[in-house]
């Protein structure tokens, strides 16, 4: 029983980050919490498949994102909507001092494709290592790294931050795929 108790308390501790991860995938807070609820139901139904002492956060994040993508596949229309919105250029204005309003940032972020939102949140905000992110997404570490770069470039573009550079550096490619931190 004590294993289950510690599982449960660890689960409760992880709820805030699980919600934050869900919010980066779902398009609204209610859908995000639905995802969290479904994840909890699945996690508790499969609790015997979890090896105590291994990474519970990665396990929960994996359940959540797999569930999200299976729902997304079912709702194809939603994908088309997202693509349509991505195709439409953003109305977010670049700020001259290089900062952006947090709400503008959220709007731009939601216009990213799901796997880009996912990888930026995992690596850029949740504190996951590239290795953990690869485990969660079920792909190679190298894939995560290049996806992060592409996602960051896309987000820079959606935020309109590349516009001022493009004006000045019209002849040079903007935001090359450099690994400089």
């Amino acid at each position, binding site marked *: 029983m004590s294993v289950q108790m510690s599982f449960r308390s660890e689960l409760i501790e992880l709820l*805030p980050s699980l919600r934050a991860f869900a919010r980066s995938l779902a398009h609204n807070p209610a859908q995000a919490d639905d995802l969290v609820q479904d994840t*909890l139901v699945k996690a508790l139904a499969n609790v015997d498949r979890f090896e105590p002492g291994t990474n519970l956060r990665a396990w929960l994040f994996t359940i959540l994102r797999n569930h999200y993508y299976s729902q997304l596949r079912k709702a194809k229309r939603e994908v088309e909507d997202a693509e349509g919105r991505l195709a439409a250029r953003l109305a977010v204005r670049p700020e001259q001092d290089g900062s952006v309003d947090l709400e503008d940032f959220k709007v731009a*972020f939601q216009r990213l494709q799901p796997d880009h939102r996912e990888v*930026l949140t995992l690596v850029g905000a949740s504190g996951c290592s590239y290795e953990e992110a690869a485990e969660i997404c079920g792909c190679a570490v190298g894939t995560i790294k290049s996806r992060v770069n592409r996602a960051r470039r896309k987000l820079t573009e959606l935020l309109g931050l590349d516009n001022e*550079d493009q004006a000045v550096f019209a002849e040079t490619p903007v935001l090359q795929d450099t690994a400089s931190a």
Partner: protein
Amino acid sequence: METLVSPHKPSDTDGKAKKVRSGASTSAHKALIARNLRMVYDQVAGEPVPDRILELLAQMDKKTDRGGAQ
């Protein structure tokens, strides 16, 4: 007076200055994205967990207790 305000203002017409600025703005964009990502994430993670989620957990505990050895 003007020189006192900005004595080392980089020239916009200088090619080298442009290159430096390009690299600097790329890493500035990275930093900006990182900062905002964390802000958004921490904002949600800092919210109290909604009752409906805690209630679900409590319900599932009851089920487990009925089915378990307790």
